């Protein structure tokens, strides 16, 4: 089972955190910090698995991948295939990349709802729900039909935001080239 999913940037700022076991905020933060300190120290020539992480129970492993400035960390127990999780992370990033077209860290910050939505279509309650990129995109895309009924106010804001978009775009870090 997947116990938690963390996306942390290279300064240790969490960009997405989801725990599938409920934990108090303090403990969550402690775990995030510990994961980051452990993983940020590791060179990119070592393996993508890390065991025996103090904050979690004994058979927990961290499986992680690094994309540009972001660490994607999945906290899993012994019942998951390590390589399978590596693939899953990649599926997640590919989905993000499709939805946001060249995803960057800013997308994760400003579109938390979308990111959560995509994640929910891939992992549910700590279990792998879907691994097929096409299926995921269909499921996420389907939502747009439902939420089209935006209020005028929202539409206006949306437009405004899009004009600001150029500024945001300049900060984009292209992930795709760095997909490993």
């Amino acid at each position: 089972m997947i116990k938690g999913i963390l996306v942390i940037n290279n300064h240790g700022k969490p960009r997405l955190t989801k725990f599938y076991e409920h934990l108090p905020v303090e403990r969550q933060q402690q775990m995030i910090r510990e994961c980051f300190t452990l993983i940020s120290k590791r060179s990119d020539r070592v393996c993508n698995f890390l065991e025996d992480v103090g904050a979690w129970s004994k058979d927990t492993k961290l499986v992680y991948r690094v994309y540009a400035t972001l660490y994607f960390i999945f906290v899993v127990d012994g019942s998951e295939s390590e390589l399978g999780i590596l693939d899953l992370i990649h599926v997640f990033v590919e989905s993000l990349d499709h939805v946001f077209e060249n995803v960057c860290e800013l997308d994760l910050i400003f579109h938390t709802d979308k990111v959560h939505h995509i994640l929910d279509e891939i992992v549910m309650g700590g279990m792998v729900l879907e691994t097929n990129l096409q299926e995921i995109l269909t499921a996420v895309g389907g939502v747009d039909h439902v939420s089209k009924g935006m209020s005028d106010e929202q539409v206006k804001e949306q437009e405004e935001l899009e004009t600001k978009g150029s500024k945001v775009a300049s900060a984009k870090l292209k992930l795709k080239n760095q997909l490993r």
Partner: protein
Amino acid sequence: MAMRGLTQFIGDIRNCANKEEERKRVDKEMANIRKHFKEATKLTAYQKKKYVWKMLYIYVLGYEVDFGHMEALNLITAQGYSEKMVGYLACVLLLSETNEFLRLIINSVKNDLMSANEEIQGLALACVANVGGREFAETLAGDVQRILLSNHSRPQARKKAALCMLRLLRKYPDAFGEDGIGGNQDQRDSLYDLLEDPSLGVVTATMSLLIGLVSHNPELWTDSVNKCCKLLSKLNHPNAAKEFGQEYVYYKTINPWLQVKILRLLQYYPPPERHEVHTKLCDVLLHIISDAQMQKNVNTNNSAHSVVFEAINYVIHMETNKELISSAVSMLGQRMTASNQPNYRYLALDAMQRMSHIPDAAQQFKKHQETIIKSLKDNDVSLRRRALDVLYSMCDSKNSEQVVGELLDYLQGGDYAIREELVLRVAILAERFSPNLQWYVDTILKLMTLAGDYVSDHIWMRVVQIVTNNEELQLYAAETCYRSLKSESVHESMIKCGGYILGEFGHHIAHKNETSPDNQFMILKEKFHACEQWETKQILISSCVKLVNVHPQIKGAVVELLKKHTTTIDAELQQRAIEYLALTAPGKETMLETVLDVMPNFPERESILTKKIKERERVSTTDRTAAQIKSEQNKDDEDGPQTVDLSASAVKSSASRAKSQLSPSQNPHNDLLDLTAEEPSHMGGGGGGGGGGNLDDLLGAPSQPAATQKSQNLGGLDDLLGGGSPPPPAHGAQQGSLMDDMLGLGIYEDPIINVQAQLAVQGNVAKILLRYTNKSFSEISAFKTAVQQVKIPAMLFQVQDAATSIAPNATITQQVQMQAKTYFSEPPKLALSFSAQGSPRQVTTWLPVHVCKFQQPVTCNKDQYFAVWGKITGAPNESVNVFKSPRPIVRTDVENVVKTINYSALQGVDPNPNNVCGAAKINLGAGDVYCVIRLEIDSAQQAYKLTVKTNNAQVTREGGWGCNAL
């Protein structure tokens, strides 16, 4: 989520220069949200949504968000998708499964589960899966099951329902009725049908659910084996891509996740019995394993290998198929050496470790021993751990010397991350596969030298056990330990182990000059300064005494050492020193021999170390893995290094727990303690209990030799109170009392003998512990003691027989118990007669027991005081004494004296603040007697007027002595 307010807020947070600013901004925003939520009815849906998003953002930043939960949950009941979405998200992120609020949304969730809108249904399912509280499980399990099995459900919903059920099943297996899921054949069949669903997503999710079900009750689902085999071969069929559709081909492998899951499930069952199924399965596995090639693309490799490694797990599970094993081994060998692929090296090592119990495989792994050892020095800690595991499990008696040598070698490097595991494993391997016992001893001693801090007590205790039980090893062990102790810096574990072994087996090497008893003792003695733990010194002192038993010639030196420790601050060490000292006293030779005899063999029992390592810590996660179930079944026919469940975690946890689990009989120095327990052990116990403390303050002043006492016309108590010397100032008295508690109270001293007494009073019984110390250099012989009463026979005595002689510098003790039957005016006498330095001597002194010792101070207020005061008038119950003080009167000193004689010094009772009033009660068999005293002070004249009133004439008479005290 296009919301300007939110975007603005996020922007602000991002612009914060430091944590402090961020906190300020967050606090401001929280206040803002709180304000708006107070008037929640006025908010539009959009605003509500915006504020909840802000809350969530703040939460993700790591701040506690403890408000607004209700508002967030209300969004779930809204109609729109985006409101519901944020509501559900808030519910999942903020609430724990036990939260009370969850009860409030059950109905909304139930409605959403029924929703015709697939997205909304999906949200509800995700919420049940993510939060999954008990009430959710009980109320909604049926609905979820219906969605899964209904003919009308679309794949999206079905997938989610399957996982949702799995989640509920894991948490609350009883939520699905008595039979659970699949209790009847129909349910099982419809679930199996889902495995043939055209959507592989549904199949994958169903497979996850099935694994959960199987792990709960494998018997119920035996049919799944054939179905899984079929599915697996279909997925690996050359035409599979066409059949299942390109979209499930993930980097050239068809749905690797599903394949992994199928292989996992199969491991819950023995290999299929039907021949054609079995053959088919083996073909597929062989195909998977041998076709795996390293590709350029990382993701292609990953997806292919995730299946490969799981296939290898299945091969390990099958155990017997030689062809498969050898192809798996050669595959692992290749991956092992792929130095640029740490992930595969990690997994290969992991698989090797689990495979090493298969003899064929283990033989072949030896070819890779060098590579594995190299991995032990890899700079990736994950790899190092795996390599250690593999080396540990592939070690046998043939390669143990090399493997253990390598591990010890590695220990010299500074890898602290896995040191503790390493040490424990070296200890176990050294014992289990030692080519000879000497090598074993050498290895452990080396281990202690290299990594002493990580050598827990049970490791060296194990050495002691083995050496004790193997006579031929004892000489060698003693020699080696002696050598090790001799080196300059010795680790404390080594001192403990070496100290114990020298004490026990030192006599084997005593005939050599270099290791003569004197030298052995010297080396032990030196180590007293080198160790930090009391425990070590305790072991050392026992060892020294053991040496005395075999080599009486060093007795003098050892006694010296013991004496030095009779006043040590550590109670255990002090107790040992005192007890051993008593044992070494003349006349105790037989006892000394019995107590300090060689330890009997330890009963052969399983090494604590191995036992620990076998104890697998059950981590209550998800499904029990197949390996877990298997190891549970095999628990009884264990043994050997192969145990499947030898995870690093088990080792680690055992190391920390082992210490506390050592039973006393396994603990060698505890054994020793048990034997000596018959010796009096209460002697070092500090002060003589509660009662007598206060008088001792004064009594603590240097006591006088008997001669001077007599010349001072003692009679009363003043000699006991310090022989007329000025009462020490209050704080000085305090110090004195501390000292007295430790040492007892000197009641007599001359150049030959020192007598000390410790007093404890309870009710009308006083217990006195007397210590006689011979200060001279010759023996005191014909030692006799007698307790005598003066004047009236008011007391009953029980006097323990004391030893008849006291060796030079030795101390003997004697207990006297005294019961006061009535009131007495003079303390009992202690008469000693003995012969020292050739001439007989007689000494008489007083025991420090006066009637006031049995008094208890009473606190009372003015009215109570004067009620008693007024009742008693005139002789014989009232006595008045006027007397002069030999020195200027200080009121606080007077109060101290009053307290010392066990009266309470009452404040604010006497109208004249100069006067001192006191009250006490005493009961010596004839009911409580109340005593009140009043001391009027005339400072100018240096005079006192003491009035004593009691309701017993005798007490009044004796109470008058107080003037002596002043």
